[in-house]
């Protein structure tokens, strides 16, 4: 944060007007820039401390290890932008993973199983959306019910873990596309995650659906009065999150090579934290998929740093909690300031 204010001051000295224009027009980008600053500080600090952090291996694995979280975060961004929340993503990811693994074990072809997993995710999202919209259930409670349901269903598939031996699924994880041995690499899961980010960003910025999502998050009442399809868009946002959870199920199954019904416990919190750290306001209407990606990388970097330190993994959650707090307070100040300006 200090880096940001210093940068702001120097710019203010040179061109007060342009800064004021920037902060007033691009106020929603400030949290994202803050997240980028934090990420860079973390990376540089880790490199200075460990000396061997900035290696292609470590940085490549950052994307590999967090591909599922990245996909979840994109879906969550859609929901949070409408002013909702989706607590079911971790459990849906576990359920689709379990179901997929058991179907594969029964000999179904991969080309059938993966669409089924995505469809199940979409169905769970649709159920949450319908509850939220048609029955005025709070998103928190509706997605909580979906979380319970998905977790229970995951256990109904099997109480123990199912190993996945399907070559196509394992290919997603084991293939390393790299220029030279030991240098940068990317796995198909990583490409998939980046594609999801790209598609998410394009949809949010260049389609009617995406712009409607921002409009609803800004003010649902106004969006309705403008004649925007509020109902369809809101429900669709949960469906997007569900599909992302289904896809994350595929990626996570590939990542671990097995499905376990307890997979992804607490993942919904990590996802929300990553999205918030990435600068999306929980009140909705303001935020970016790219920001969520930065948030996921911040999360991944903290996790890597802590394992580098050899400290207990409980520090991950503590630092994420602390970081979340900092970002929420910063957002709060920004919102208060822009509200004061408007007056």
């Amino acid at each position: 944060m200090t880096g940001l204010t210093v940068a702001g001051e120097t710019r203010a000295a040179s061109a007060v007007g342009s800064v004021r224009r920037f902060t007033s027009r691009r106020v929603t980008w400030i949290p994202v820039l803050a997240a980028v600053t934090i990420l860079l500080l973390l990376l540089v600090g880790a490199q200075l401390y460990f000396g061997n952090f900035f290696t292609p291996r470590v940085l490549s694995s950052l994307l590999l290890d967090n591909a599922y979280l990245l996909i979840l975060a994109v879906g969550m961004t859609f929901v949070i932008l409408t002013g909702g929340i989706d607590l079911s993503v971790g459990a849906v990811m576990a359920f689709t993973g379990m179901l997929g693994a058991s179907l594969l074990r029964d000999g179904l072809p991969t080309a059938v199983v993966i669409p089924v997993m995505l469809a199940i995710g979409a169905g769970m999202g649709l159920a949450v959306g319908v509850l939220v919209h048609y029955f005025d259930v709070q998103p928190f409670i509706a997605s909580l019910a979906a979380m319970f349901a998905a977790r229970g269903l995951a256990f109904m598939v099997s109480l123990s873990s199912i190993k996945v031996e399907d070559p196509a699924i394992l290919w997603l994880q084991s293939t390393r596309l790299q220029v030279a041995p030991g240098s940068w690499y990317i796995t198909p899961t990583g490409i998939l995650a980046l594609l999801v980010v790209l598609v998410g960003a394009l949809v949010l910025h260049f389609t009617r659906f995406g712009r409607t999502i921002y409009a609803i998050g800004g003010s649902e009442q106004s969006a309705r009065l403008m004649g925007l399809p509020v109902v369809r868009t809101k429900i669709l946002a949960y469906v997007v999150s569900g599909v992302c959870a289904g896809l994350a199920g595929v990626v996570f199954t590939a990542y671990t090579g097995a499905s376990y019904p307890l997979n992804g416990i607490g993942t919904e919190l990590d996802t929300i934290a990553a999205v918030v750290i990435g600068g999306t306001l929980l009140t909705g209407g303001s935020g970016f998929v790219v920001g969520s990606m930065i948030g996921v990388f911040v999360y991944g970097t903290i996790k890597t740093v802590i394992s580098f330190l050899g400290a207990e993994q409980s520090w991950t959650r503590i630092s994420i909690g602390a970081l979340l707090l900092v970002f929420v307070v910063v957002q709060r100040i920004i919102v208060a300031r822009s509200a004061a300006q408007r007056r």
Partner: protein
Amino acid sequence: MRRLVRQRLFWPIAALLTLIVVNTIARPSFISVTVRDGQLYGPLLDILRNSAPLMLVALGMTIVIATRGIDLSVGAIMAVSGAVALTIIAGSPSPDDLGTVLVAILAGIAVALVLGLWNGFLVAVVGIQPIIATLVLMLAGRGVALLITGGFITTINSEPYRFLAQGYVFGLPLALYVSLVAIAIVAVVERRTALGVLTESVGINPEASRLAGVRSRGIVWGAYAASGLLAGLAGILYSSNISAADANAAGLYIELDAILAVVLGGTSLMGGKFSIAGTVVGVFTIQTLKSTITFLGVPPAVSPLFLAIIVVIVVLIQSPRLRGGISRLATSSRAPKTPEVVR
């Protein structure tokens, strides 16, 4: 009859009674109470005894929800208070000493109170959304508890501490007295003073009640402090029941059970009017449901699915749209165009 159905507590109590009747039919021993050494035993008493931690947490949650908030950190606070108390007892030379145990309990509760005050500070003073403000502690709290116990499950052998959850006084479990006293204190403070009305007014319209001279900041702050305190006590009871501080398992998902109990009891998540009696009934319903699920031989892992179904049914019953639709159907079949206020 109609008046009876309109009673706020009608549906919660009906649900609880139905559960008890179903259980009794399925196994007549359910309502039996046996006396051994002047102490009462039986499935119903087990429910009363085991529901104590949830009861304490749900009471605090009721007050927080009445202020239009939510407290997700109660489970983490339970873990912290149990960890603090047990670490003190485990570190003392005389774990059976009553003084040591008292100091440990007070320390655990004091830490919980501080955590509750912290939540209240974030919500009431800084103005962060309750879900996020308490999410910070929910993420970080368990990590803190793990650090306190050093990553292990601290076990102790302290007779006075164990007595707290398992002991009997005048033939009834001590834990039952604890929850009864808590219910009484909360009921008296909220209902025999103006505090309850003020809390409701803050929940219904924070801005209007502030303009009307209600010191909403203090009331909201106090609600989170009370929730933290009660969660701390619940953590002590939980750790005393198993004579161990398990930072990962203590109070896991209890925030969800507590929110569910509050909603089952007829308190709306939108804040405002709350019902302590409703919460008490809701807690017993959930505890009975859990014992029913165990009795039916459903693997505990699948029980979330049942909870999900119950949540959906309850929120659908509470949904104004569904109720409105039903009452519209009822009125249109009898007397068309009778304007009815649907709550």
